[in-house]
């Protein structure tokens, strides 16, 4: 048994794999891009699911006929989704601009951090259609199930849950955006 445990600790074998900062930055960049894209795509898929459900029910044996309000709402949702797809096309399908390709790993990482921060700050833009679709979907069927006078009251709990979910989501994303801003500051705005 060696007497000096400190020496034993300090003489331990060297790590075989060297640390590669560039590699780490590249991996983080890929992860940021992937999570941004998956959030947008998942949100849009969820909206399309609700729309498809309503269309299927309207065409199927349930003989559900959407009222004018629902039709307008659905049209708004679809328009919103199309605008989102156009607006976020660069985050869904990577464009790979010449500038980005020519940037150093760190600069590219900084761009991706900024993109992710903006994405989180604008959560209501890409998350909004889902909230609206949920409201229309639930409103349509609750409206059918209850007499007219009770519709608003029966919708209220759902609206409250949706509002809480939305506010919580927005606050969480705002916090994440602030964390990214801190990381951007750490990377060094003086070097931009």
């Amino acid at each position: 048994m060696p007497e000096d445990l400190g020496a034993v600790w300090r003489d331990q074998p060297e790590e075989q794999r060297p640390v590669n900062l560039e590699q780490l930055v590249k991996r983080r960049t890929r992860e940021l891009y992937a999570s941004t894209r998956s959030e947008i795509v998942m949100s849009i898929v969820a909206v399309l699911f609700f729309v498809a459900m309503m269309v299927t029910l309207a065409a199927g044996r349930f003989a559900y006929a959407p009222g004018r309000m629902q039709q307008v709402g659905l049209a708004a949702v679809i328009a919103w989704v199309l605008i989102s797809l156009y607006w976020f096309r660069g985050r869904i399908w990577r464009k790979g601009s010449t500038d980005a390709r020519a940037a150093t790993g760190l600069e590219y990482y900084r761009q991706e951090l900024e993109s992710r921060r903006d994405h989180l700050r604008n959560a209501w833009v890409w998350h909004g259609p889902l909230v609206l679709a949920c409201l229309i979907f639930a409103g349509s069927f609750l409206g059918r199930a209850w007499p007219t006078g009770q519709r608003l009251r029966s919708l209220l709990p759902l609206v409250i849950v949706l509002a809480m979910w939305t506010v919580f989501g927005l606050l969480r994303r705002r916090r994440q955006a602030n964390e990214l801003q801190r990381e951007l500051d750490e990377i060094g705005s003086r070097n931009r």
Partner: protein
Amino acid sequence: MARDSSSGAGRDELYRTVVRDYGRVIDRLAAGYEGDADRRHDLRQEIHLQLWKSLEVFDGRCSLKTWTFRVAHNTAVSYVNRERRRNTGLVNIEEIEPTAASRNAEPDIDRQRALRQLSQLILKLKPLDRQIMLSYLEDMDNAAIAEITGLSAANIAVKVHRIKNILSRRFLEEQHYA
């Protein structure tokens, strides 16, 4: 990483100094926080990234060594907290004795075995005590450990005394049984 401004170049230069002077210490520190080789590699990378970023605001109010240890420890502590599910049952230095005693030791205690047992002991500790233990094993004095951890020198002295007792009792016992 190529930087084009003077502050960036200064940071890169500092980072290279840190890697040259304390690269091995950082590796050992990571070993004190993560036993699995692949995860440890991730932790080492994370520590290096945080260090590199932090050097932007390094103002020389403490030594580069102290700064490096602070950032490395803090990054590792965040890692331990993130991996909370895998890091259950961590104990304080004061609680380690009853859980760590091993009386059925094999008689082939050598440096490698001692290192393995020491690592196991360290990995059981709660983060703050782990910081103190690792700093002590890196041959730092109480004042330096206090500067890194933010605890008072008196508090560190008590903890270090406790660590010495635990290490000598645990390893001398095994030597006795060997």
